[in-house]
Each structure stands twice: as structure tokens, then as C-alpha cells.
């Protein structure tokens, strides 16, 4: 009996593994034992058009190239355009007030240390075609679908 259960488990595992292997093969476009040429790297979207946020708390994506923009203890390139005082010249949107808040909700005079490393939250987008289709649905469209019913 125990032998049978163990055999079954192995069978299940094996079939799961082969299913997984097929899945992987479809994602990377080749069997797991092959090493196909990597797809060319997709370029960074640099259209300078601000993107719609998928939900209100989302850090907006960066609509411009950030090649070689240094962010470390010595300097922060992003703030040369996005800081409060820089926006007059740069015409960039100012970092929002949440960036000045410490974790107690106190407003500091300048960007809070926990918001200093911008690309911890903000990322550029690339022109790559997604390997798996995204089924995320915006709350707005869910609500209007429900309302229509």
C-alpha cells in the first residue's frame, strides 16, 4: 500500500515536472536543454509622456531615459530636476509631499531619507513584448463593469 502511494507520488511529480518543462519551453522558446540566442535587449521608453497609474498608490513609472543617472550618498541626479527648487527650470513634476514625510508622518525640509533612492520605487519601462499577458484589471474598469450589470 505504502509502495503504491509512493509510486503514485512519483508519477504525479514526474507528470507535473514534464508539464512545467513544457511551460518553460514555451516561455523561452526552446527546450530546457537548449541554449538559444538571447532575445535582443529592448530599448528604454523615452517618450516623455507621463503614464496613467494603475492604482492611486502606485509610484508613477519614469517616462524618460535615466542612463548614467547617479543616485548615491554623494549625489542624486533625479533631484536636480525633481526637487522643489529645481522645477522652475526643469519643468519636471515636483516629488510629491509624501516624499518629505518620515515614517511618523512628519514633514521634513527636504526629501526624506527613505525616499532618497528613487529607483527603489520608480522604474523606467522598456519596449519589450511581455512573455505572459497581464490580466490586471484597473479598479475603475471593474467598478464600471459592475455598474453596467
Amino acid at each position, binding site marked *: 500500500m505504502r509502495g503504491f502511494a509512493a509510486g503514485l507520488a512519483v508519477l504525479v511529480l514526474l507528470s507535473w515536472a514534464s508539464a512545467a518543462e513544457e511551460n518553460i519551453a514555451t516561455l523561452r522558446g526552446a527546450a530546457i536543454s537548449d541554449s538559444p540566442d538571447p532575445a535582443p535587449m529592448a530599448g528604454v521608453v*523615452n517618450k*516623455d509622456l507621463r503614464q496613467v497609474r494603475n492604482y492611486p498608490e502606485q509610484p508613477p513609472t519614469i517616462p524618460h531615459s535615466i542612463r548614467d543617472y*547617479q543616485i548615491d550618498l554623494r549625489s542624486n541626479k533625479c533631484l536636480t530636476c525633481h*526637487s522643489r527648487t*529645481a522645477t522652475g527650470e526643469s519643468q519636471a513634476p515636483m516629488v510629491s509631499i509624501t516624499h518629505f514625510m518620515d515614517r511618523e508622518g512628519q514633514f521634513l525640509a527636504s526629501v526624506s531619507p527613505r525616499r532618497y533612492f528613487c529607483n527603489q520605487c520608480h522604474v523606467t519601462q522598456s519596449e519589450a513584448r511581455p512573455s505572459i499577458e497581464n490580466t490586471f484589471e484597473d479598479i475603475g474598469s471593474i467598478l464600471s463593469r459592475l455598474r453596467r450589470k
Partner: protein
Amino acid sequence: MSFFGFARDVGSAIRRPSATFSLGFLAFGGFVAGIVFWGAFNWALELSNTEAFCVSCHEMRDNVFEELKGTIHYTNRSGVRATCPDCHVPHEWTNKIARKTAATKELWGKFFGTISTEAKFTAMRRELARHEWARLKANDSLECRNCHDLAFMDFTLQGKRASEQHDRFLASGEKTCIDCHRGIAHKLPDMSGIEGWN
């Protein structure tokens, strides 16, 4: 005195044995030596004006050169690149000599160890960078403009941020390249207190 008489006098003066060498030999020798030294000087100048020379000392190779490698001035789609002297040494001869003289101070820095380790270099970096900014500010970013000519920039092909800034501040002469494009080739030093960086 006839012309021939004058020529003969001069001729004999040149041929007349001086203490050890004839004047003609001295003049000619001086001339040749002049060429040789001038050539050697310019040759040394040219030799020291190559990237290979700049990065032959480890301070430059391990810090600034390493950093340059990832940037657009080292690797890009067109394969045109900028070498150290393209950005750091003026093209005209007099300016070049002036910069070389200043560079000797940096060599001093090497031999007496003010920048001999990475930590020391990092500490000196702000100072060195400020010299370069001041120089480029004073010459209206001449070295950048040797390659990038505003007159041939097609703003319609540039990104929106680039064309707007160039249109507002560069074309009007209000700012120069280095005011906005710091740290394009190397890592920046501590920028606290420097205008525009907060």
C-alpha cells in the same frame, strides 16, 4: 659694396673657424637641434596626449577610466567615442601647453601620493572636479563643442526634455554644456552645496 662682395664677406665669416666650430656649423647645428627638440617636444606632447598615456597610471585606470567605460562616451550605437584628451586637453597649441603645465601638478600629486589610493582619490575628487567645471565654464565648454555643435543639433530629433532645455538655456547662451551635463563621464564627487544639487 656690391651684392657679391657682401655675399663673399658673409660667406667667409661663416667659413672662418671660430674657437672650435665654424659659425656655419653652429647655426646649422642649432637649426637641426631645434628641429629635433621641437619634434621631440611635440612628439612627447602627442604621446602624452593619448588615452594610453592617461591610463598608464593606476589612479586613472582604476577610477575614472573604469567609470567611463559604461557611459555613452565609451560605448554607444554609432561606435564613435571620446578619449580622455578629447574632453580634457584643448586643441589649440597654446591652450594645450597651458593645460599640460597644470597637469604637471597632477603628476606631482601622483609622485607624492596625494591621490595614490582610491580613498585618497575620492577625497580629492571634489577639488579636481571643480577645477574641470571651472575650466569648462570659462571656455564655454569648448571641448564638448569640438564634437557637439549646437548649429548642427536637430532639436526635433532630441527628446522633449533635451530639446526644451537646449532651446531655453543653451541656444540663448544663458548656460553652457557643463552647467547641466556634469558627471556624464565619471562618477560625481560629493555634490552637497554645489549649485543646482540639493
